[in-house]
């Protein structure tokens, strides 16, 4: 098993809340993603056994939802919003700045597997643009200075 006891317990706990078991697919995928950092076929198989839904239905749903990476990513997944409100406040410049600092291009992961940089659509943080999400935290009203501090702190934590 790739899923740990805690994740399995969490999936079971969520599953029984719903009037129909199939509704637990998305919550289960979320739990798996939170533990592993991405999704794959092995995880679909494990989820299928826990919630007793055919694996094909799990895979079918999973492939629709872009929030879950389908291949391994760095420890910190940096997602820069490049939609309109952020773009008007320099989101493209933010991406270029991150590319330069991390010495990778958009879509890539640093060789130490610490950071993956991608762009995403509006994250509902438009009045505090430009912004990025790293794992499940939002960083808003970004400036070069703030980005420097954030990356330094994450490197220290890692």
């Amino acid at each position, binding site marked *: 098993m790739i899923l740990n006891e805690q994740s399995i317990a969490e999936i079971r706990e969520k599953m029984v809340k719903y009037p129909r078991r199939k509704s637990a697919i998305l919550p289960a995928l979320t739990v798996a993603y939170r533990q592993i950092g991405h999704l794959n076929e092995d995880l679909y198989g494990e989820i299928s056994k826990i919630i007793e839904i055919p694996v094909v239905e799990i895979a079918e749903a999973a492939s629709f*939802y872009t929030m879950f990476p389908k291949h391994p990513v760095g420890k910190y997944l940096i997602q820069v919003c490049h939609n309109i409100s952020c773009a008007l406040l320099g989101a493209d410049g933010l991406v270029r700045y991150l590319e330069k600092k991390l010495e990778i291009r958009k879509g890539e992961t640093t060789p130490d597997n610490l950071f993956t940089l991608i762009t995403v659509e*509006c994250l509902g943080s438009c009045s505090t643009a430009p912004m990025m999400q790293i794992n499940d935290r939002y960083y808003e009203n970004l400036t070069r200075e703030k980005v420097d501090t954030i990356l330094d702190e994450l490197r220290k934590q890692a």
Partner: protein
Amino acid sequence: MEKRVLFKHIDDPEQVTVKGYVSNGGYRAWEKALKSMKPADVIDEVKRSGLRGRGGAGFPAGLKWSFVPKGSPRPSYLICNADESEPGTCKDRELMECDPHGVIEGIAIAAYAIGSHISFIYIRGEFGGPIRAMERAIEEAYAKGYLGRNIFGSGYDLELIAHTGGGAYICGEETALLNSLEGERGMSRIRPPFPAVEGLYACPTVVNNVETLSTVPHIINNGAAWYTSMGTEKSPGTKIFSLSGHVNKPANYELELGTPLSYLINDLGGGISGGHRLKAIIPGGSSTPFLLPGQIETPLDYESLTEAGSMLGSGGVIVVHDKTCIVWVIERLIHFYRHESCGKCTPCREGTGWLEQLISRIERGEGTPGDLEKIDSICDNIMGRTICPLGDAAVMPIQSTLRLFRDEWQYHIDHKSCLVKSEFEFA
């Protein structure tokens, strides 16, 4: 002036806790509804308040609730739509993060009104903060007996399940949301049947936006007459506007409906940033047609914005200054809609793809004569011909700029470059 009804306690850090919420007058409306009102009375009060849906379509809330068949043997469901992902919109996030019990109280009263004993809040998956705030608040509400069994000793039971999404804009569209909640791919459904008759698990279902539901406790507490004393005759009450883009003070502001756009942008928002001039305004989230600087006195209400050629939508007001290339703005938007089209119906799936190709080509300086006419024609063939309004949402901003800024589009094709070079750097 800002008119804070939903935002009355938004700056109070205690408001997120059940204790703080209750000491600020919270859960009194829920008690009042359960103890002294019949479901039909609640519906009637909300109908008379004129409250309209804040998720984008502006449908009267009380009327929607009244469509749920009475005495049906099947259960009914109330779903709070917290998928907030219309570009330019960030109000539901603030409500959930700073006033989660207000959302719960609204859900509870609406659930009672339609006779639902199981309710859901569908929160977009990226919203880590709001998800944590809502989950914590739901737990507290259960512990205090505001949710669960025999609430306030009334015999009424209500479950509330927090469900999180997977990062798909389309799942904010109510029928796609239903599919997503059922564990399917988030693709929209053909209507009719409407959700009120056949929604979640083919049972009667009401879907309402976070802001819509958060308003309900205030109406129950203070009455419909109080609510209609604010705003305009046809657009009563207050609305939260997310102000973003090229303004000095972007933020969420709650205003009486009917307040002029200029007040939001200039008085509250501190005017256009960088000493530039206003070029265009997208008043209701990225899916709504653009307005020109000359329209800045337009009152922010459903009717006036429709009359001005746009829509109130979700209330996401995006401000664009004059050092911005309009083709570049539209390329950003069409990339989004193409990416978010669920792919179920052909006009939207193929049409948004063709539009993205054409528009990107023009933006790159590779446009050819006739491209604008092609875009016109594709837009006409999407508009009104798709299963859900995502197609219309993609097309409306494009069509409006082709009308308002056609010379700029034409220049881009003729000169293979921008008429206005975009000037905004990352600070």
